[in-house]
Structures are given as C-alpha cells and as structure tokens.
C-alpha cells in the first residue's frame, strides 16, 4: 500500500505540472507580430510590477555575472538539480543496501 501511495503522489505531481501546459493556450501574436511569451518567470513579472508601481525606481545594482545565454542558464539549473538528485540517489542506494544486509545478517545469509 505504501508503495502505491508514493507512486500516486509522484503521478499527482506530474499531473500538476502537465495540467497548466495543457490548460494555458498561447495567445495569437500581437499587432506588432511579437510573440507572446507564456510561462515567464514570476520574478520577471514582479520586476515589471515594480516598474508599474514606482516608475521612477532604478535598480541600483546589477548582477556581477549573467549566464551568457539561455542555454547556459539551463545548464546551470540542470547541474544544480543533478547535484541534489545525485546525492539523494546515493543515500537511497546506501540505505536500501544497508537494510538488505541487516535483514540478511539477522537470518544468517550472506548479503
């Protein structure tokens, strides 16, 4: 039962991610022929909102280093996720093997 629970939760997460992709349709390009971007980051939207509320505000500091392109940005995000997922996988492997060995020892079978 536990196993099914976990599987169902993972499926729910996939559905939660897939649902918006299916629900939100890309609007037709505007008059200027500019593509409308959907699923932009909320950070960017907040930046525009700051501009709307306080048009006089000027950011007083700029990032020291920006990824040289969108692809490089994705690379770094992927590295970040891979580092984390890699470690969780390592722990899971260790933990499973340890549990297996403990069981084997208690029943006096070689693991």
């Amino acid at each position, binding site marked *: 039962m536990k196993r099914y629970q976990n599987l169902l939760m993972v499926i729910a997460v996939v559905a939660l991610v897939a649902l*918006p992709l299916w629900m939100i349709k890309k609007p037709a390009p505007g008059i200027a022929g500019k593509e409308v971007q959907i699923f932009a980051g909320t950070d960017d939207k907040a930046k525009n909102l700051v501009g709307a509320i306080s048009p006089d505000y000027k950011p007083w500091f700029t*990032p020291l*280093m920006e990824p040289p392109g969108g692809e490089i940005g994705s690379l770094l995000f992927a590295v970040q996720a891979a580092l984390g997922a890699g470690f969780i996988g390592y722990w899971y492997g260790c933990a499973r093997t340890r549990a297996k060995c403990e069981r084997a020892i208690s029943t006096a079978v070689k693991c």
Partner: protein
Amino acid sequence: MHIMEGFLPATHAIGWSVASTPFVAYGLYSINKRIKEKPEQRMLLGVAAAFTFVLSALKMPSVTGSSSHPTGTGLGAILFGPAAMAPIGMVVLLFQAILLAHGGLTTLGANIFSMAIVGPFAAVTIFRLVRSTKLSFGPSVFLAASLADLLTYVTTSAQLAFAFPDPAGGFTASFAKFAAVFAVTQIPLAISEGLLTVVVMNALARFNAPELQEMNVTTTLEVKA
C-alpha cells in the same frame, strides 16, 4: 520567489540582511553542534540540503501562465529544526545569485529571510501543531511543507509591497498585486512540494527510522507500523 538583483532600495536590502544574519549564524552553530554530537545524522543533513537543491532548481509552470519554483526547505526544517535551514538556504541562494543572476547579492538577505527563515519556521510550527491534533504523519508533513512553500512567497510579496507601496492604496494594494503574481502562481507548486516532501519523508521513515525517532519526527508506534 527571488527578488531580483538591485530591486530593493538600499535601506531595505541592508535591513533584511541584518535581520537574516543572526539566523544564519545560529543555524551554522546548531548544525555544527548536531553533527559533532550525532555524526550518523550527517547523511540526513545531506539529503535535506540535496532536496532543497533539487526543488529550487525546478521551475514549474502554473495555472496562472507563469512559472516559479518550489523551495524544498520544509523537509530539512522538520528534520533538523528551522534554524538549520538558514545556512543551507543561503548556499542555494548564493549559487543562484552568483552563477545564474537569479536573485541577487543585494537582495540575498531578503531572499534568505523569506525562503530560509520564514518557510522553515512555518514548516516546523505547522508540523508540531497538526501533529498535536493526532493527524497522522503523511498529511502532517504535506501540510507543513506545502504551507511553508506558500508562506515563503507571501513573505516575498510583503517584502516587495513594503519597499514599493502603491501610490494610491499603500502597502495593502501593493501587497495584493505582488501576491497575485507570486502567491497565486505558487498554489499548485506548493501542493507539488508537499507531495514530494511526503515521498522523501516516507523513504526516510523506512530506512532511517531510528534517527527520525531520535529527532522526534516520528513516534515509536509509527515506526513499527
């Protein structure tokens, strides 16, 4: 949830940094102490940090047509206490601020405050509160992690509204606008984070039962069940 580089007035940027510093310092102290006393918990600390790394790298689409990312701080907060997540969150935020121009150094203090302080403290408070009502382990973890995620983004909205009050409606009107961007987008993501936290917590409860019991996360009865 990251406030972009330079997008907080200098006084606010300094104020939030000053507010976050003691939490980070105490968090470092508490992690060091814990690892010295119980070196076997090092692996779990790694899992907690890794979980935050993964989740805060995943930008997910939301029903509002915007994308955002979860925070992953609830898991570690429930395991190691809220303070421990402040330095861990700082590492993640620094990585993104320096290498990805996502968030920023001037807004680091404010971002630490929302993601690595308010989120974890909310997670632990909610977890203890719902556990005291005898709600079972899974749903408690879910509520704690997802509400902590949501509250992080509510905090970000409040921080921005505080810095940029609406010329007509003041803080409240501005907060409503920022919350419409951040908090509403976050709702499905918060649910995802809650579910993923339960999945990892289930695995931890299965393979690291003695540690979790020692940390007062699960009770004896539940470990056996």
